């Protein structure tokens, strides 16, 4: 114990600095300080998410309809499954971390190495999964039309699934044929040299209207949530009128500006909160790797104290703790 800086006061009397507040070492206490302040940061984000959600309580996207994808299972709607898997991976890596801490207390170097290795592996799988989740969300799947007021009109039709009449979304490209357009993307090399625009949408609202008009089964769904907790589906006439009168542009997928699933703020908060959390996981993995190599070269063996593993462990568990809340408020509630 006496080889570490934090735990080697030469004088043990209280007024000479020999007393350790809360009987915790300096490093652990500072880690707790950091965790409390970081917890408040995350609470700020999640509370802001709650604010926006309360503000648009009747229009907010339904998470189960947004996050339905699982890698390698194309075209199947499996809400929750993949996030549940991610949650489990993170809890598992928390367990291997706490086992590493435990092995450290018993000074079993090889066990610490292996448990740290599995923790890092779990963290890497989690970050990878989150990247995949982002990519899927950005890509989108059905496409929608944004109205002049910034609302989203989605398309779909009623189908019989197991004897029940269910509204299923239909991809816009399935019923729309892009008409030849005069309009080409304005690039700085073609027009005025100091201005350009991003790529043009695949379809114009006029194309989509034609497509909708010639497919009598397809209806428009708005983002308003009705008393049954589902999004409102318009009648055929209303669908046509709504698209003609208010349709502004075709959108597919989600970014910071538009979101084919509904309120753009949903996408903004998703990117911001899961992004900030993912960054924490990433830094956790990096810190774990540093400590992992320190364990391998025997730094803590020589120090006769594995407290460093415990300190990064605290951080790692905190990341897991935050995910538990993100999981609840983004995917469940």
């Amino acid at each position: 114990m006496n080889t570490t800086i934090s735990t080697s006061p030469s004088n043990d009397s209280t007024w000479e600095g020999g007393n350790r507040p809360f009987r915790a070492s300096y490093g652990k206490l500072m880690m707790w300080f950091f965790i409390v302040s970081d917890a408040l940061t995350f609470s700020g984000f999640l509370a802001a998410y709650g604010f926006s959600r309360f503000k648009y309580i009747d229009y907010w996207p339904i998470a189960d309809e947004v996050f339905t994808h699982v890698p390698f299972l194309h075209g199947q709607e499996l809400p929750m499954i993949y996030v549940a898997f991610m949650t489990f991976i993170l809890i598992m890596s928390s367990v291997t971390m706490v086992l590493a801490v435990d092995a450290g207390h018993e000074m079993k170097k090889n066990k610490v190495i292996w448990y740290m290795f599995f923790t890092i592996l779990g963290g890497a799988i989690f970050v990878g999964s989150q990247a995949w989740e982002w990519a899927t969300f950005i890509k989108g799947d059905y496409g929608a039309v944004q109205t002049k007021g910034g609302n989203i009109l989605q398309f779909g039709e009623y189908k019989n699934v197991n004897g029940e009449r269910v509204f299923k979304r239909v991809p816009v490209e399935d019923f729309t044929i892009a008409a030849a357009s005069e309009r080409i993307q304005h690039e700085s090399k073609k027009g005025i040299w100091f201005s350009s625009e991003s790529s043009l949408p695949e379809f114009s609202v006029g194309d989509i209207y034609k497509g909708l008009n010639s497919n009598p089964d397809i209806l428009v769904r708005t983002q308003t949530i009705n008393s049954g907790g589902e999004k409102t589906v318009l009648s055929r006439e209303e669908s046509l009128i709504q698209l003609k009168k208010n349709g502004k542009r075709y959108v597919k997928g989600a970014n910071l500006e538009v979101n084919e699933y509904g309120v753009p703020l949903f996408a903004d908060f998703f990117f911001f909160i899961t992004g900030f959390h993912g960054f924490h996981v990433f830094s956790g993995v990096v810190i774990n790797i540093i400590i992992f190599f320190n364990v391998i070269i025997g730094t803590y063996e020589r120090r006769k104290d594995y407290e460093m593993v415990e300190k990064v462990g605290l951080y790692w568990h905190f990341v897991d703790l935050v995910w538990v809340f993100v999981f609840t408020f983004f995917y469940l509630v």
Partner: protein
Amino acid sequence: MAEHSHKLEIFRGLIKFKSNTQKIWGVLLLLSIVTAIEVVLGIYKPAILMTPSMSPFEGGFTATLLNILFSAFIYTKSLNLIFIVLTIIKAYYITWDFMHMRDETKSLRRVVVWTAVFLICYLIFILLQEGGYIESIYDNGFIKRDF
């Protein structure tokens, strides 16, 4: 290392583990069960749980006070309330057993938990209250956002 002694019972002593390793696996089992319950409820969404469990009190000042007191049951869907409670349970076991809060001194526990819980509750109250107010303006006010 005498100072690394662990408290090995959970559920207020109902379950006592033989070693710290065993306790870790026990807590993992508990967290997995809670997550599984959440996922199953999230997928099936039982119809009974999709509405709040109490209806608001009608009447004067007392009714208002009662509505505030029971707001979690009156204004939140039972399902969401269950999710929040289960989340807090998970958070408790992660902090207490994985982060070894159970083995720290009472004072450290209080400094960390009470500070965070107080400030977070305050933050949530303020922001959700304000969000609800703005929603009511959109819903009942003169200015509409749906064109």
